[in-house]
């Protein structure tokens, strides 16, 4: 049994299943990448690629519900929201996050949801250029919206740290401090994108990766992203078009030792963000992606034990996670878990 992680919430304890290693189900490589044949612990679903437009009656795009049903028969699906516009300035109840991502995530029975720290107001293409402002006022405003959105989802909501070419003007604090204060204010969680941290560390003067990881509350990390990128025009880009760089593997090992995420998810995308991004192909990239998946799984097993992932687990009567000498938090789920697991929450006992 892979176990569960007890995550404290203001209203009680919720349980995050420990799934293992997965990959993002990305439409940019869908034509050739064998997502459905892969033996991975989870697939991360980009809710935006399945949601119906707000000016249509479709909650999910026609024909896509069957795809999600099929994907979900073999593995737990994780919901990822990029274009929810939840941190913009228009009413939250009219946002794609509330109108589309909430019902979609519930239909997937995703045990948690991760979103992205961007602005958006009925707009999408500008998101990637609009990281939220790291200010005290935005801690409060974004925090209130995050809290409300997590209530709507009914499962833990983790916020992904962004890769950005420059911070939003008006920043008053470091990004890591902002994220820490945000989750403390809102009662939400963190989705740690290690390649985004690495990218910012290369591009942004004074951005300290060690300080970032030393500042954020590691006990609030529920998912981790890793990816690769490319150099172009004098900057390094989070384009998800290359193998995971060695420094990111080092960061992953460090983070796995300091936190207890439910999953590590790899991202590969290819041409999406910029004319200079390359199209990925089966011939050039399949072996690379598979190698990175295997390496991530091996690292997870080395840190958490050989039976700690969904695809490798065996039933363990006492709930131990297999790590020598450490029972992990699972052993303490009884006394700490003041509330029963929420019905329907992924791998959690119900």
């Amino acid at each position, binding site marked *: 049994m892979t176990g569960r992680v007890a995550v404290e919430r203001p209203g009680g304890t919720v349980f995050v299943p420990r799934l293992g290693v997965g990959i993002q189900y990305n439409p940019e490589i869908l034509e050739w990448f064998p997502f459905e044949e892969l033996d991975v612990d989870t697939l991360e679903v980009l809710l935006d690629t399945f949601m119906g*437009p707000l*000016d249509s009656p479709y909650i999910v795009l026609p024909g896509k519900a069957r795809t999600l049903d099929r994907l979900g028969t073999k593995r737990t699906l994780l919901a990822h929201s990029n*274009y929810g516009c939840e941190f913009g300035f228009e009413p939250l109840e009219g946002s794609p996050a509330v109108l589309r991502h909430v019902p979609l995530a519930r239909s997937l029975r995703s045990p948690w949801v991760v979103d992205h720290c961007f602005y958006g107001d009925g707009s999408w293409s500008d998101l990637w250029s609009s990281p939220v402002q790291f200010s005290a006022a935005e801690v409060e405003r974004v925090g209130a919206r995050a809290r409300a959105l997590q209530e709507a989802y009914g499962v833990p909501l983790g916020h992904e740290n962004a890769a950005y070419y*420059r911070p939003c*003007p008006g920043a008053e604090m470091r990004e890591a401090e902002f994220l820490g204060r945000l989750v403390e204010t809102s009662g939400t969680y963190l989705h740690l994108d290690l390649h985004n941290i690495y990218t910012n560390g290369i591009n942004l003067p004074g951005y300290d990766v060690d300080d970032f990881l030393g500042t954020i509350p590691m006990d609030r990390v529920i998912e981790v992203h890793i990816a690769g990128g490319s150099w172009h025009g004098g900057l390094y880009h989070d384009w998800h078009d290359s193998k995971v760089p060695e420094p990111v593997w080092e960061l992953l090992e460090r983070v796995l030792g300091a936190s207890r995420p439910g999953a590590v998810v790899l991202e590969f995308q290819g041409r999406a963000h910029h004319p200079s991004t390359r199209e990925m192909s089966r011939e050039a990239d399949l072996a690379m992606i598979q190698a990175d998946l295997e390496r991530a799984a091996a690292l997870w097993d080395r840190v958490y034990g050989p039976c700690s992932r969904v695809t490798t687990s065996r039933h363990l009567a006492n709930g131990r996670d297999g790590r020598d000498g450490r029972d992990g938090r699972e052993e303490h789920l009884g006394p700490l878990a003041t509330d029963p697991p929420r019905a329907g929450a992924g791998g959690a006992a119900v």
Partner: protein
Amino acid sequence: MSLEDVRIARAYASTPKATRFFIETYRYRLTSSFGHALQSAAPLTYRTLRAAGQDMRALAERCLDALGWVDMGPYVYRFCAAILGVLGESELAAAVPGLPETMALEGASVALVQRLAAAPATTWSPRGEREAWAKAPERFRFQLTGTGVVVRTERSLTPWLRNRAEIGKTPLEQRPEWYLVHLPSPEESARIVPVGATGAGLFALLAGPAPPEAGEHRALPPTLPLMLTELAERAVAAGLARPGEPLRWLEKYVELGVVAGQPMDS
């Protein structure tokens, strides 16, 4: 610009390389959204343009220039409608065979989907109800549900609709044709069904007094519901249909869900 705007602009100007990549990313993703909007909401138009050899990214940039590079985000049908408007005013409308026809049909489907965005689920009648009306039409009055609209085109698109591989290849016959554009349910894509002059005329009787004109999108709220006998009398008197045809068309429209029945004793 306000002083705050100036301060913000100066902040972005102080990091020109970063700001440039922000802008380039925005523009690239918006041109991608152009293609996505057409493929999703106007696939016939998209394929017609591709078949005509159009560079879709270059076309996207020209259209976005006309639209001010506005980002409509999750309002994909609104974006598509704006694109079709720009294309309709462009030289392509005259230069690409079939394009005015695909844009007429898909302009109607885009408008229909938008109109039904907030429609209650009761707008679409269950199949069981439709079968009851079809079995005993004399017991019901019929009216439009608002889930369909008839569009007239000046060329027949039917060969392309039957086989999408023929888009841009098969020449289109220069003769008017009428198509029903309808949304079968809130989970399905819009569909296009040829109905001919008779079907269009009968649909128009259910919609209101005036017959549909070329390119006009009629999906008006229904007038007083009609009994089958009333529909038949008016259709035959107007020369729109021969005896027997109104019933067959009514059955077809009920099956497609664009017409619904109300019991006469209700």
